[in-house]
């Protein structure tokens, strides 16, 4: 069946509540017996952090990011933490796989980077693997997924230039999770676009490793008029 094939090809089978083209509201029973409420609460906290507010500004043309419209808490398969559904312009959060606030913050940032790419460029999510790889590289790079502490928590001990290895690995994993291609092919694609996409730090202008980096990125953004006028 065409729709099943499409679901598998584009990774929708990881998000069983999300049939392409259909949208249903959460029932009360679902709210009671799933992690939906916890997800909503954590999302509320995540939305109030400064990084998120910074991001809402950065989304420019998509400057209004509404929690109710653009975020959705759902049950997902496997160990997936979230996703960005370009078809419905929604960020999906996996309520059964996100159990800590810090994890939620990270997933929100990661998916917002996908949303940011979707808003500012013609990203062909479904057919162009290079675009997908690029966005995954950027999201792993800029969201804090590959911070030293997160890597150590995963028992990946590395120091010199380990960030890049981590970004490569996580981008690869993300692509393999949602698309049916071979590992070798995925590695080749990631290698092709890595240099370009790793160095694309939009909208931050730097890789935000800490709160101060984020604060300075925000300051640069607020100062942009003066900056460009005086170059």
């Amino acid at each position, binding site marked *: 069946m*065409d*729709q099943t*094939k*499409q679901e598998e090809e584009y990774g929708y089978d990881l998000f069983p509540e999300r049939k*392409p*083209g259909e*949208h249903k509201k959460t029932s009360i029973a679902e709210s009671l017996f799933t992690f939906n409420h916890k997800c909503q609460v954590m999302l509320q906290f995540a939305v109030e952090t400064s990084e998120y507010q910074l991001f809402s500004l950065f989304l*420019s*043309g*998509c400057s209004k990011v509404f929690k109710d*419209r653009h975020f959705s808490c759902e049950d997902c398969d496997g160990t997936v933490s979230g996703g960005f559904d370009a*078809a*419905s*312009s*929604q960020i999906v959060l996996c309520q059964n796989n996100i159990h800590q606030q810090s994890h939620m913050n990270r997933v929100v940032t990661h998916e917002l980077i996908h949303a940011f*790419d*979707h*808003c*500012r*460029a*013609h*990203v*062909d999510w479904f057919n162009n693997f*290079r*675009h997908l790889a*690029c966005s995954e590289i950027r999201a792993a790079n800029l969201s804090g997924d590959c911070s*030293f502490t997160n890597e150590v928590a995963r028992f990946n001990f590395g*120091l*010199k*230039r*380990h*960030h*890049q290895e981590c970004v490569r690995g996580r981008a690869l994993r993300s692509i393999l999770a949602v698309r049916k291609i071979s590992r070798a092919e995925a590695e080749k694609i990631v290698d092709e*676009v890595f*240099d*370009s*996409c790793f*160095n*694309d*730090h*939009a*909208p931050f*202008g730097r*890789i935000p*490793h*800490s709160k*101060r*980096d984020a604060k*300075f990125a925000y*300051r640069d*953004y607020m*100062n*942009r*008029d*003066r*900056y*460009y*006028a*005086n*170059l």
Partner: protein
Amino acid sequence: TSINFSPYQPNVAAEIRTRQSRQRFSSVPLPSVVEPVQTVASVSCSWGAALGVVFCYFKPPRACEDYWSEFRHCKSLKNCFHHYYTYGTVPSCQQWKEDYHNCREWEKHRGTEAKEALRRSEKIRVAEQRNFIPVWQLRQEPPRDWHVPLNQEKPQDS
């Protein structure tokens, strides 16, 4: 109205020049005492309201304190660690310090040398930011379905 930064207008400098040629208000506030025009293309221009003419003047791209705080941040142990973790090298922070001194120098003496040094340094920074070939084409306007309510979306064609 302020000059809007937008990812849909990659050539910001050209946009600024176009706007200036249309003599729109810039976002920079009017000075109470007007500096004489130093030079050339990329400066801030605004109407001298009482006098009805356009005055152009330069301001350092960032506030001098910003340069100093960037320098301090660059030098910090945490940042050095993160830089090593990402790039395998220790960051070089000297440029921020020089920019800070040039900024203060310009504030005191309004010299052309300091101004040009600052501009040069910032232009290099901007060039470094853009030093890659984009994989995708940038949009001219946001996606149309971003705000479309969910129930109204058409089913995706297979």
